[in-house]
């Protein structure tokens, strides 16, 4: 299903983590796809200095997150904006068709981080930054007690 390169990035993702004093933070998510990508950047001389990501998502979501951090590191803001979701997928040797729309959002998260840095987004907001909110579909957020109980013998 996934190319070797995708699996390699998935197994050994680059630049995982967060940056506590980030200059920009971008978050994107979709409850349909079940993916959420958060990207942290440090900017130095109008270039991306440090970059980290946190991702809740499938193999493609993790691999694209990892890949984009590699692709934009050291790039200028403008260059970084030029990196599209498609370019990320291409750099990974392609993604399965079903994964092209849903799980290929790393560049969007990246752009949000740039927006955040440039003051375009809801900067440093303490409100959740998720686009298509998780948990918007009805349902208890917390699992019931029964779910924690191993089956009776």
């Amino acid at each position, binding site marked *: 299903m996934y190319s070797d390169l995708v699996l390699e990035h998935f197994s050994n993702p680059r630049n995982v983590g967060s940056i506590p004093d980030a200059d920009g933070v971008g978050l994107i998510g979709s409850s349909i796809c079940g993916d959420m990508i958060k990207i942290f950047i440090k900017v130095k001389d109008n270039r991306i200095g440090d970059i980290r990501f946190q991702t809740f998502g499938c193999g493609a979501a993790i691999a694209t997150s990892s890949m984009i951090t590699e692709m934009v590191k050291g790039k200028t803001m403008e260059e970084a904006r030029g990196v599209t979701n498609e370019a990320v997928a291409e750099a990974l040797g392609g993604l399965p068709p079903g994964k092209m729309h849903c799980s290929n959002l790393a560049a969007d998260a990246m752009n949000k981080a740039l927006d955040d840095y440039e003051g375009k987004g809801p900067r440093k907001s303490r409100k959740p930054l998720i686009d298509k909110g998780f948990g918007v*579909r009805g349902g208890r957020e917390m699992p019931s007690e029964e779910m924690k*109980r*191993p*089956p009776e013998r």
Partner: protein
Amino acid sequence: MERKTVYMDHAATTPVHPSVLEAMLPYFSRSYGNPSGIYGIGQEARKAADEARATVSSILGCRPSEVIFTSGGTESDNAALKGAAFALKEEGNHIITSTIEHHAVLNTCQYLEKVGFEVTYLSVDQFGMVNIEDLEKAITDKTVLISIMLANNEIGTIEPVSEFAKSAKANAEHSRILFHTDAVQGASVLDLDVDKLGVDMLSLSAHKFHGPKGMGVLYLREGTRFIPQQTGGAQEGNRRAGTENVAGIVGTAAALRLAAENREASSRHCQRLRDRLIEGILTRIEDTYLNGHPTLRLPNNANISFRYVEGEAILLNLDLQGVSASSGSACTAGTEEPSHVLLATGISPEMAHSSLRFSVGPANTDDEIEYVLSVLPGIVERLRAMSPLVAARERNGGNDV
């Protein structure tokens, strides 16, 4: 070095049992005749198909003529719903089913809605159980067909189908409501006696019980009104046209007999392993939750949500370690929507996306369970370490990413 492989996706499909394959082999290149041929090898094929039908009927507790061989569980479900609905549409246009049915039922109901039927989709409780009072309340004098699955393919919940069938027939205002059950997941562990179940139609899929893919069974009670959905030759008593897949039919019967013979031992074995697996996961990995019913569930099914991590990411890692499982249902793996079954039990999309299904089989061992339990915590930990949700929880209890 051979890669270790531990197959725990028996709800998706099972290997054809060697004895089943052996039973099939003569019908590919040796007794390959068309059962309609009056000559030797045609009659050999006819005889084999007749015997297979008799075998299946003895396990379902019905007559051979009530057994229709199809191309799979999906065709059986489609044929049952459309065949009955179209036959009864003068009597009424209302169908009742549940929100946790397989897509073979749900999408067919949606198709029927487009052509003039009305469908009530009964919701389920947090364990995935359909409520019998809901069912009774949903019945109107237009209701002609009810379809409730015997056991769910994702969360393993077993529905009290015989009670539903009895109650539905008792509550029917008018003469008769047909009751169909998708028993695809029940074949190797549950009693399939159609009279005890009280159903008019029942679907099976051979590859779920160590038979060949591309083969199914539709039980159709004698006298049930039915419009054939595949028309052509007179095969299957004029109810399903097309040259018989003799090898597949023979394999289906051989596999179903094997399943029936081993039902108790296999169920016990699976349940023991399955319980070890569930207990191991819930105790060794924090923030894990069992989906489905704690006890009224298929003995081989463990469906667990691993909070903060996405199911496919765990699966991929498991696969790299040689373990095969599934997230949501295999059939929906092409799409990325969270499982409709899990959502129907009321959990959040996030928790639905965090679910994994392990379905064990007769060949699984204690060592394999131990192996899974040995690799799983590390995988989950590693993925949680990169999850924005965990970070958020640590900051403020998980309500703010």
